[in-house]
């Protein structure tokens, strides 16, 4: 009997925990509320299946536990029941997969006109690059990374000279505009993760990865690294600020371009002061 009680308590307790627990996701700040909705659908379908199986087991134990003189039924197969259950399961799985694949299609289809913003990971620091007046990001190469050029911009590419560089500072994004986040690493694997955006993606040295989003509310959010990248992994934090258009313009105008940074570096300023200058603004 203890078994039956525990099984019932466990099934109902799990549902109650889910409904009553204070532990739920942080309020969303991007357009990916479709993802949240798909998770909620999945919770209900899987929750129903879990409770049904556990309660069925509890009933079986209650009803068919050994009593003196009892014998079990003899029924090797029941083709009709088995195919009925297989069909039902297939439908349930399809009900979760189909919306999932539709949303995935949206997730990987970057809208026309999304602004490109580059995020660069290195042990254990976030840096950012935005295109300058020409609206284009210049090319980069890991081989070009030096203490003065930590993001490895190609000095011979004119498109890169006016790129805005933010080393170890805050990233600002305008609210309501789609952004394509380009992700790059100069050393090891990292993962750009902002819980409020719901999206995340690994950053892989040697290639550029991406995802896109539209920030839906202003605020200051935390950037975490979500791919174990060495001893400093949990300390690799950054900040992303979603601004109104006006605030964003003001912030943008305060950032330094690659050529400005190179000039100040070559005029004797050390890398440390350049970083300090960039972050102070």
């Amino acid at each position, binding site marked *: 009997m203890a*078994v039956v009680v*525990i099984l019932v308590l466990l099934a109902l307790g*799990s549902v109650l*925990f889910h409904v009553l627990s204070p*532990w*739920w*996701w942080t309020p969303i700040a991007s357009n990916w509320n479709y*993802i949240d909705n798909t998770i909620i659908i*999945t919770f209900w379908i*899987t929750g129903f*299946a879990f409770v049904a199986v*556990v309660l*069925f*087991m509890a009933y*079986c*134990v209650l009803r*068919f536990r*050994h009593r003196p003189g*009892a014998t*079990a039924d*003899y*029924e*090797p*197969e*029941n083709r009709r*029941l088995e195919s009925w*259950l297989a069909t039902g*399961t297939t439908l349930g*799985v399809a009900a*979760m*997969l189909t919306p999932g*694949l539709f*949303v*995935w299609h949206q997730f*990987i289809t970057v809208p026309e006109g999304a602004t490109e913003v580059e995020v660069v990971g290195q042990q254990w620091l976030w840096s950012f690059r935005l295109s300058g007046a020409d609206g284009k990001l210049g090319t980069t*190469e*890991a*081989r070009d990374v030096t203490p003065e050029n930590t993001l490895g911009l190609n000095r011979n590419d004119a498109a890169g000279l006016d790129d805005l560089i933010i080393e170890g500072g805050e990233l600002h994004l305008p609210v309501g505009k789609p952004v394509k986040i380009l992700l790059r690493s*100069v*050393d090891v*694997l990292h*993962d750009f*993760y902002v*819980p409020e955006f*719901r*999206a*995340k*993606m*690994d*950053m892989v040295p*040697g290639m550029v990865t991406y995802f896109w989003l539209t920030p839906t509310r202003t605020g200051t959010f*935390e950037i*975490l690294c*979500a*791919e*174990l990248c060495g*001893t*400093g*992994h*949990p300390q690799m934090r950054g900040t992303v600020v979603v601004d109104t258009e006006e605030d964003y313009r003001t912030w943008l105008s305060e950032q330094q371009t690659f050529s400005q940074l190179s000039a100040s570096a070559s005029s004797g300023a050390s890398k440390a002061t350049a970083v300090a200058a960039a972050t102070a603004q």
Partner: protein
Amino acid sequence: MVDVRSGIGEALPPPEVEDVELYHPHSWWTRYVFSQDAKVIAIQYGTTATAIGMVALALSWLIRLQLGFPGTFELIDADAYYQFITMHGMIMVIYLLTALFLGGFGNYLIPLMVGARDMVFPYANMLSYWIYLLAVLVLVASFFAPGGPTGAGWTLYPPQAVLSGTPGGKDWGIILMLSSLIIFIIGFTMGGLNYVVTVLQGRARGMTLMRMPLTVWGIFTATVMALLAFPALFVACVMMLFDRLLGTSFFMPAIIEMGEQLQYGGGSPILFQHLFWFFGHPEVYIVALPAFGIVSDLISTHARKNIFGYRMMVWAIVIIGGLSFIVWAHHMYVSGMNPYFGFFFATTTLIIAVPTAIKVYNWVLTLWRGNIHLTLPMLFALAFIVTFVNGGLTGLFLGNVVVDVPLSDTMFVVAHFHMVMGVAPIMVIFGAIYHWYPKITGRMLNEVLGHIHFWVTFIGAYAIFFPMHYVGLVGVPRRYYELGETTFVPESVHDLNAFITVAALIVGAAQIVFLFNLAWSLRHGREAGGNPWRATTLEWQTPETPPPHGNWGKELPVVYRWAYDYSVPGAPEDFIPQNHPTPGRLSHEGAS
């Protein structure tokens, strides 16, 4: 409807080969140490796996102490923490679960359950164990090597695994880890070929494939999968070892290490992830399928009822085994691989849910109208179903590509895989040990200690891993030495973490009760007799218990029926052993 018991009472084919002559040990050393008897090898595998498993258990305590009470224990710094999680994960998956299911249960049960005298290549089988022991020793050596073991996470992703920002990356840690895995795979291959060939070639007369117990089907399919999947890990380890020691660039693009240009260039870190998960996903089922098989037999025996839908169960095992080779990239949805892969891998992953669900239905339908004896093996089987269903269902979140995006790399993933491939298979291991200990030792395990062990372990493990999903849902990433200050994690999550830690300490301590029971019952357990559970399968029909070398005495058993003739209408007892000839008393009608 086809009769799964067809052929009962038909004339048996004559023997195709003569009975084998076994190597007979001449001394204590060849009988108990360098033994070629699969049963001794099984116990050697089991003991070694349990011993190294206790190391993993102790590591899990240290991990939980840090997570529950961050900053309290000076012994655990960030480097040590990453070394602990890496070694805990690798030990549990490879050196405990794989070794125990295939090397332990495979060796003990395959020859006995198919009616063979031993494995077909006993010498290679013996070597398999000693090479496994060497792999374990190399792994343990890394704890004492300069720099300590690797802290790259059990996935060992390059480039960080071989660089200085990771513990053991530039020291001995990663070298010993990769070497140990290579040695393990060599040893496993020797054992694995044995298990496969013994099932295919060593079965007793009358033991058709579709009469084999599901335990054998599970171990057999898992071994075939392991023989196909481990080579991917093998080459990945060799290549990474070359990258680390010889300066090749299989997995290394041009990168910077702590501000300095390295000589690497042109390699692909993602290639390693594909190779790793091409092994790693089948590995999940290499652990799960033996558990599926064993639990089917536990439920059937202790519910005194044939397993429901036997043929469907066999096909589900085979189909899951096949499908598990085309789902690997669901571990890589946010790895930066081509995003269009997501459509394919999400679809294949969710398709696997169908045969898996069928297995669950058939287990619970076996309970329906059964005669359920709530023995310890049955209790553990019920606990397996609960935890496996729970963990399997959260797999539907993580397999559904877009749902995985927010949850990936969070504690939700940690909770999911611990529930489904940690807790659930270990419930089966416990159930199986309570079930077969009487055959192995001739004595029963103590019931009172067993019940304490069961209830603490089952409820405790659920209390650890069920709430952990919600820590991940909040957004807490996995593999964080300390969460520190955050804007999105409420203070109460720390209390929840402390609760989980306390539960983990208690569950760990309950395993000491279990180990004590194993030792105590060896001398003081109740005498079991040859077939205490009144089971049908061949291992319970041996002339002596524990079975001696050669298993069957003078005559090999002959098999007349499937493994699940429980509560057959009209039979004098509620079970008919597989080697029981039918004197025409039983008609086929009973099996419709």
